[in-house]
Every structure is written in C-alpha cells, then in structure tokens.
C-alpha cells in the first residue's frame, strides 16, 4: 500500500499545482523544484540537526515559500508569460546546484534520512498522515477559492486588464497564490523525504513537471476534485499495468506514451479534463487567452 502513500503525496502536489495554474492562471513548470526544496531542507535538517520531523517539514515549506516569492517577484515584473521560462530555468538551475554540491549528496542523492516511524505499522501510519494532509490541502484550496477572494481570482483570470483597472493589484494576488501553492508543495516534499528516506535530483526534473501537469490537465484544471482524480489515475493505472509483466525497458516508455498521448487527446478533445464541464467547447479560462495589451490607438 505504499502506492497509496504516493497517491496521497501526489494529490497534495497536484492540488497545489492546480491552485497555481488552474485557479491562478499562472503558466509555470517549476512545481517539482519547490517539492525538492521542501524535501531537501527537511532531509538535511533531519540528518544534521535533532529537530523533530514536523519542524523539519515546516522549515522545508518556509524555504519553498521564500524561493517562490523570489522567483515570482522577479519574473512577473517582466510579464506573466515570462514566468514560464523563468520557472524552467529556476528549476534546472537549482537542480544543477544540488547535483554539484556535496552537502546535498550530489548526483548520487541524499541518503540516510533518519527514520521517524518504524515497525510494521510504518506504512499505514504514513498513509494516515499523508492522507490527512492531502485532505487538508484539498479543503484549504477549496476554501481559498470561495467567497470574495475566489471571486477576485476568477476575475483576474477572466480579464486581467479590467481587473487591474478596477484597482486590484493582480501581481500581489499572483504572488500570494504562487507562494501558497509552492509552500504546500514544500510540505509534500518534507513528507516525501521522511517516507522514502532517499532523495536524488532525478526525482525532481522536467519529467516530474510533466507528470504533475498531466495529472492536473487530465483531472481537470480549475476544479477541486480534478487533481485528486488525476493523481489517483496516473499512479494507479501503471500499477495495474505491472501485472502484464512487461520488461522494464518497454514498460517505462510505454507508460509514458500512454499518458502523454492521453494528455494530448484531452487537450484537443476535452480541455476541461475529466471532472470539468463537458463538451469540446468548454475550455477552462486558464487555457484561454485574454491579451488586450495592444488595445486601441
């Protein structure tokens, strides 16, 4: 049932990513790096200091939030589109640094993260913890996007220019949403570090970005349950396929082909994802364009 723990962690990741791209409409790709920052911070603190696990995880979240504000504030100064490339560069730059420093374990990875829970009840205990955090995440995000705050988020996504011209600080709103989403990813990272007790840079690269993106797009952007469904499907289905007993050299790319293929199919035929409102025409606002920067002479 360690798959269930993975699913719980990815529900946290996908939901928080959905907050950023689905609700906030911010095109970014760097979610895994905040996952990584949370994981490495928590892991390193656990190895080198005697801090308790929850504190390490909290520290990881704080590091992730600080980094996300740094990234968003620099990139959004240029334009919303620029965040996309900036986040990619940010992710790869940090990963490269992690690969090169010895104190992060280098390319071989960070090992020997101390155990916190041991014994036969380990996995169920972790499942309970991660499951609870996942449920809390989904609830928190649903709460954030309700009411006046959610209305402001929707308006910003619908027509950012009009939104700003009404006196709203769109940049602040974006940075806050980004920070919240990345902070939550940091928490997921901490949980991940303690459960698997091994971290390596490969776990957080562009492939991971594509995975989380797939979960959100397939499940349905800008919905509460979309990321949950996406995470569950994307992790559960490969498990089912393992029963086919294909050689790993075929299985890994085959899975990749199935999922990337699915994303493309959905992108063209059903952009609102599995959960979103149906029909070819229905497109989540986050996928559409509302650029009026050149309006009028």
């Amino acid at each position, binding site marked *: 049932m360690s798959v269930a723990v993975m699913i719980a962690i990815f529900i946290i990741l996908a939901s928080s990513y959905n907050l950023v791209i689905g609700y906030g409409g911010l095109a970014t790709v760097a979610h895994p790096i905040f996952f990584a920052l949370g994981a490495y911070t928590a892991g390193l603190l656990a190895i080198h200091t005697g801090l308790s696990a929850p504190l390490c995880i909290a520290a990881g979240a704080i590091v992730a939030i600080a980094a996300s504000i740094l990234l968003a504030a620099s990139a959004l100064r*240029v334009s919303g589109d620029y965040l996309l490339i900036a986040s990619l*560069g940010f992710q790869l730059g940090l990963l490269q640094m992690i690969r*090169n420093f010895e104190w992060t374990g280098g390319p071989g990875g960070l090992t020997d993260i101390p155990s916190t829970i041991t014994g036969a009840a380990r996995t169920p205990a972790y499942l309970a913890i991660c499951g609870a955090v996942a449920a809390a995440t989904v609830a928190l995000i649903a709460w954030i996007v309700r009411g006046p705050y959610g209305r402001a988020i929707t308006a910003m996504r619908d027509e950012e220019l009009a939104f700003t011209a009404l006196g709203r600080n769109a940049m602040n709103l974006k940075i806050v949403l980004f920070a919240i989403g990345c902070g939550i990813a940091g928490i997921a990272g901490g949980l991940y570090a303690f459960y698997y007790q091994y971290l390596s840079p490969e776990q957080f690269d562009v492939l991971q970005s594509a995975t989380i993106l797939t979960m959100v797009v397939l499940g349905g952007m800008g919905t509460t349950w979309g990321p949950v469904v996406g995470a569950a499907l994307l992790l559960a289905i490969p498990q089912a396929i393992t029963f086919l007993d294909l050689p790993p050299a075929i299985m890994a790319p085959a899975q*990749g082909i199935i999922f990337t*293929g699915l*994303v493309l199919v959905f992108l063209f035929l059903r952009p609102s994802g599995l959960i979103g409102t149906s029909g070819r025409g229905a497109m989540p606002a986050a996928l*559409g364009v509302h*650029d009026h920067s050149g309006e009028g002479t």
Partner: protein
Amino acid sequence: MTDPIVLLQILWTGAVTASSYVLLTVAFSLTQKVTGLWNFAQAGTMGVAFYAMYFLLNDMGQPLFIALPAAAILAGASGIATEVWGLDVLRARSSGNLTFFIFTLILAELIIYILTLLFGTEPQTLFPSILSPVHIIGGIAIGDWDLWAVGISVSALVALQLFLRVSNDGQFLIAVADNARLAELYGISARRAYCVTAAIAGVLITLAMYLFGARSGITPNSPMELILTAVIGTLLGGMGRVFMGGLASLILALIQSYSVLVIGSRWQNLLIYGFLFIAIVVFPRGIHLPRRRVRLPVAQPG
C-alpha cells in the same frame, strides 16, 4: 598566465563544439520570433533528426549524403505537421500560453518516449568512430572534420541571413514576426510563414544533431538538455534577435570551454545555469532591449 597557444586551441575547439549549439539556438530563436511561441516540441524534432540519421546510417547502411537530407526532410515535415495539426488548431481556439506550453512540452515528451521504446537509453553516436586528419597550424591542432563542422554552420547561418533579407518568403517571415494580423491584412499568409519557419528549423536542427551526434553519445533524453541551452541563448540574445541568440550561445559555449582553466569541469554545467539565472533576473529582455512587437488593436480604434 597560460600559453597563448593553449588559449587559441581552446578557442578553436570551443568554437567547433559551439557550432551545434549556435544552430539549435538560431532555430529556437527564429521560431520564437516568428510564432511568438517557446516551442519545446523542437526537442522532439532534435530526437527525430538524430535517430533518423542513426537508423539510416547504421541499420540501413545508407551513405551520409542520403541520410542527412532524408533526416532533414523528416525533421522539417514533423515540424510542419505540428504546426498544421497542432498549433494551428490551438490558435483557432484562442488558446493561451499555458496551452501551447503544455502541448509542445508533452509532444516532445511523447516523441522522446517513442524513441526510447525504439532505440533504448544507451548513448549512441552516428558513426562508430571518427578519425579525421589533423593539421597543426601555428601550434594549434585543427582537424579536417572541425573545419567541416564550422564551415557547415557558418554556411547555414549565412544562407539563413540571405534568405531572410533577400527572398520573399524571408521578408514575409519578418513581417509576420512583427505583427501577424497586420501582415495578414496585406495578404501575407501567417500560416505559410509558420510552416516555412518550421522547415528552416528542421534543417538547422538536423545539421546541429549531425554535428553533435558524430562526436558525442546521444540518448533520447539529450534533446531536453539541448533545448535548454537554446532557451538560454535565446533569452540572453534577446527575444526577436535571432543571430544575437546564436552569438550568445557561442559566447556561452566558449566561456564554458575556457572555464576549464579556472574551475573544475564538473562546474561547467553549473556555469550555464548560473547564466540562466542572471539572464532571468537581470536581463529578462536580453542584453540589449529588443525591438518591441507592436500589436494591432483588437477593435478598430476611435
């Protein structure tokens, strides 16, 4: 101070390696300029070009003068197909940047997975070995193959420059890059411009992958790393400044080569990403301010 001969040698060897990066950056930057998109699907094109050549040269025993053009045609065709069946559809739907990004990235991933399935993850080079005559000129080792590589790259770039300046299609590319809607009003087909750009990119990418693949081992995942250097070069050169992007890549590659003298080789990659950081935070619009894209108003102005 080190021997000036060593410095010149590094310059030459660095320039040779850089030539592939320059071609890739020019392809990426040109596409970004004309279509306005950061087209990550080019990573897929890189894979297609390389493995097509690999397959034709090794499994089918074809000579280079067949394999390379065939791969170029395939690369260009896949770029055009992406344009017509993918990007055009998304444009018609008023899709936003996120959608284009998702599409191009995921498409690249799909192609990479397919290539992994077909060719495995072991690094492959195009030729079992490259031995070419080396001349010593003024104390610097200059290989025949090196001259070829630089010659091919320079010719390709000169040809591109001529094309953009002189030919009708080239002019159309510039017009569409500047203002697609306005260009359409003058009867220039934006779609044709996009397809021509895709074809050019295909050729440049194939040349670059040839230069890479002849010397270094390529895996299906290599294109993802390669496209990142193209992104960095495009950013540093400034959006819309295609040849500046190429120059930026050249300088970056040279700096990387020279850095061997100063820092350990394992830090060379880090240097590149350090530059990316700097580019993003300090020079988001490129080292010089680029020409602004003037957009047409959405409605007729009052």
